[in-house]
């Protein structure tokens, strides 16, 4: 009943480094050179989802914590950024347009700090991390986990969305925050600036991936995997599983918040429809398809699912929902290791064909054991 941790394997470390450099080259040179402005804008949006997916991969794949409320953290980051941009657009001393429509004349206290970039920008990461740490500390300390935790995070997403819609005068209601003209003095309609946002997003994704990789290669990463596979054993060894889990959960929330903040200037809107129960659980399938136990898998899954969604959901709206449902059933039910699992399977099959020492019966037994997913 073991899933491989991300840091397993004794392959030459240079393979990974060269692979990362090649992919980075593709992202930074090839994509901007070949894609149209519109295509690049869509691709930037996919990269935002890939950042969320890296976070979910860390919390769920490595730490065993299935959060169905990742949209909340995405939304907290997005709204923090959106509030700042909205206030920039309104100009000093004025309230954003939607507030005057709802009859709110004075800037609410909650909005006041977001006039300043030096508060709004850190808040993008700090607020989601703080919320996740608070909730995580309360529930993990009392050993609420597994399905209970998943249900609680889903309820959090439901409550958050209802609050956003209900407090229309403060949050923009169902419409959310939109109509941003500029960010940091840059015109958002200008393709050059959108290109710059692309590079920033790609850079952040690379940094988050490396962060996750470093974490998993460290002693902390070993402990996280150990907590996933046997929380009580880790406790008996003298570690505090609560702290280990809270760290991973709040890092994954911070990543989602960062993704939300990048999403807003690129897509131009943040609204409850992007972060409720349904979008939150869709974020999980990105990771499941790519392979929850690998770190690259979530990124690939996020790009693949979003690409499929954009190209299919407009042409066959009904067909896409069936396909999405089927994706959940087939991937989780029958290929729980996702695409990364297929690659691993192919690699070991290749080893067997070559008759390399890596394919001894003992290794094969271990591989089969690895494929069983823990509860």
């Amino acid at each position: 009943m073991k899933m491989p941790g991300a840091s397993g394997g004794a392959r030459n470390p240079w393979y990974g480094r060269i692979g990362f450099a090649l992919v980075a080259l593709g992202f930074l040179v090839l994509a901007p050179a070949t894609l149209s402005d519109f295509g690049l804008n869509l691709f930037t949006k996919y990269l935002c989802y890939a950042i969320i997916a890296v976070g979910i991969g860390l919390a769920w794949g490595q730490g065993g914590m299935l959060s169905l409320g990742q949209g909340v953290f995405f939304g907290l980051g997005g709204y923090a950024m959106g509030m700042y941009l909205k206030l920039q657009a309104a100009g000093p001393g004025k309230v954003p347009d939607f507030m005057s429509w709802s009859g709110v004349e004075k800037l609410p206290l909650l909005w006041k700090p977001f006039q300043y970039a030096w508060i709004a920008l850190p808040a993008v990461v700090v607020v989601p991390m703080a919320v996740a740490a608070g909730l995580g500390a309360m529930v993990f300390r009392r050993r609420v986990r597994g399905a209970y935790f998943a249900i609680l995070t889903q309820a959090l997403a439901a409550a958050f969305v209802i609050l956003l819609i209900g407090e229309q005068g403060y949050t923009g209601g169902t419409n959310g925050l939109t109509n941003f003209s500029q960010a940091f003095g840059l015109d958002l309609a200008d393709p050059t600036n959108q290109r710059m946002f692309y590079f920033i997003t790609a850079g952040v994704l690379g940094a988050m991936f490396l962060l996750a990789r470093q974490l998993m290669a460290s002693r902390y990463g070993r402990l996280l995997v150990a907590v996933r596979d046997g929380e009580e054993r880790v406790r008996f060894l003298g570690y505090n599983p609560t702290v280990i889990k809270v760290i991973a959960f709040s890092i994954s929330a911070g990543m989602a918040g960062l993704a939300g903040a990048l999403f807003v200037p690129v897509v131009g809107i943040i609204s409850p429809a992007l972060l409720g129960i349904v979008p939150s659980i869709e974020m999980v399938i990105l990771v499941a398809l790519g392979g929850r136990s690998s770190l690259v898998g979530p990124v690939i899954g996020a790009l693949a699912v979003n690409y499929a969604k954009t190209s299919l959901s407009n042409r066959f709206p009904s067909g896409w929902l069936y396909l999405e449902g089927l994706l959940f059933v087939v991937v989780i039910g029958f290929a729980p290791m996702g695409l990364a699992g297929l690659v691993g399977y192919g690699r070991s099959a290749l080893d067997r064909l070559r008759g390399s020492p890596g394919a001894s019966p003992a290794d094969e037994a271990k591989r089969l054991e690895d494929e069983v997913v823990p509860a």
Partner: protein
Amino acid sequence: MGSLLTQAFTGLGIGATLLLIALGLTFTFGQMNVINMAHGEFIMAGAYTAYMLQGSFGRETSLLVSLPVAFVIAGALGVALETVLIRRMYGRPLDTLLVTWGVSLMLQQLARDLFGAANVQVLTPSWLVGGVHVAGVDMPYARLFIMALVAAAVAGIWVYMTYLPQGRRMRAVMQNRQLAACSGIPTARVDRRTFFIGSGLAGVAGVALTQLGSVGPTLGTNYIVDAFLVVVVGGLGQIRGAIIAAIALGVLDAYVEWGTSASFAKVVVFVAIVAFLQARPQGLFVLKTRALT
């Protein structure tokens, strides 16, 4: 004073609806450790059953006819889901959650394709129109009907679990699956039966919900999260827990909503649940085992 009582009645009504939905969940979750996200779509199936039957049975009797029919249809859907998918995934609760979510997406889309995306209306029989006025509180017959239905369902389940051999086996599997299997209890059959009853109750809940509003493909989604919270607060597989939790959550929701706003009430209820889990992380009532928590 009158409005205080009115809120209590509203809360009881919300609680009764939640309980009807949560009863099925607490068994499938408690006995099989399966989190069935498609439970909401079984509610929807029950509601659409009532819609389909009102054409052939007329306004006065169709609601009563739909109750058993919806029970069987939703139950059959549940057994199909259990046999095809869930049986293969025992011991992986989080994965069943995601798989059944996929099933629920497909069922919702199926309903959209079959019945249209627009909501449909189920007529209220004349004997449910109106209400009584007691101690300053308006009690619509529709709400009272749901409460009576819940009471009947709870009584039925209690009799089933306490006196019938099938119910005894069900309790045995819930308490210790391995030992029950060793004692010759066909656990697979017990599981299937539990799933049939749990899903069937969702169908009955769907029929009841037609009397509170219109029927649409996302009918179940609106209730499923709250129903799962009832299970979490009540404790796994505990009827007593589910009853108390459903009424407590309903009444809390009604009072906070009355004092502030509907959106704020959801947040208060959520915070209250997290705070409650600090005191009792496994819910109100816990099945005693020697396993490590």
